């Protein structure tokens, strides 16, 4: 079944990160996820939204509802049009940062969700997709 789009959100300011957290939380609650799963997904979404703003110069996010053989999942796709990531393997390493952060954003987010995919092309931007299954 095709994913159902639940929400699309701009990612430009830190208020947009707050909105991303609220929307992700409310859809997780709506679809019956446990408190711990809600917290993990919202935290991962918050990290990735911040990356898109701080390193990607802003972008957008889309929340989707997935169904697969009776399973229900929430997917967040975070897209920016920034400089992209030249070395994805390095960016996925704990503690590696090109900026002011702690370097936990990408590898940490990956640990918090069930599915994690990242596409990045230098000069084209970065897109990250995360899924939590109930």
């Amino acid at each position, binding site marked *: 079944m095709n994913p159902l789009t639940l929400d699309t959100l701009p990612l430009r*300011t*830190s*208020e947009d*990160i*707050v909105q991303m*957290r*609220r929307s992700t*939380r409310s859809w997780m609650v709506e679809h019956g996820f446990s*408190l*711990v799963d*809600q*917290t*993990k997904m*919202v*935290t991962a979404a*918050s*990290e990735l939204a*911040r990356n898109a703003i701080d390193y990607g110069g802003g972008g957008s996010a889309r929340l989707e509802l997935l169904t697969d053989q009776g399973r229900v999942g929430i997917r967040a796709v975070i897209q920016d049009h920034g400089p992209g990531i030249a070395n994805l393997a390095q960016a996925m390493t*704990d503690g590696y940062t090109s900026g002011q*952060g*702690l370097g*936990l*954003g990408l*590898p*940490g*987010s990956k*640990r*918090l969700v069930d599915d994690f995919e990242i596409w990045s092309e230098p000069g084209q931007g970065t897109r990250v997709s995360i899924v939590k299954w109930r």
Partner: protein
Amino acid sequence: MDRIPILKVGEFLLVSIQVDMHDRLAMSLQDELTAQVVKTQAKGVLIDISTLDIVDSFIGRMLGNMATMSRVLGAQAVVVGMQPAVAITIVELGLVLSNVRTALDVDKGLALLQSLVNPSEGSNDHEPTDA
């Protein structure tokens, strides 16, 4: 604009973070807290995060900064009230709050601050110090 109140309780300051913080609010809280530590000459700072439903790396870094800044200014800092789901999540995220003292709740946090600020209190080995 939202503002996070900082309350003075005896020789301590109590900050209760009750809103979903955007970055500007977090930054202004750091500024306000350091100003209040200096102004009130507080001996300790209690940061209550019991109503925060997530701590991401940005908020974690901010908590660490507030603890370190307070310490540099002569005040001990304790973060209290972290929700269990938040604790599980930050460990998996890899966030290490190594420079932040924590306690389960406000009562235990106050007791910890008391013991840090007045280590001899409760024993008769020393003359009481100035209150």
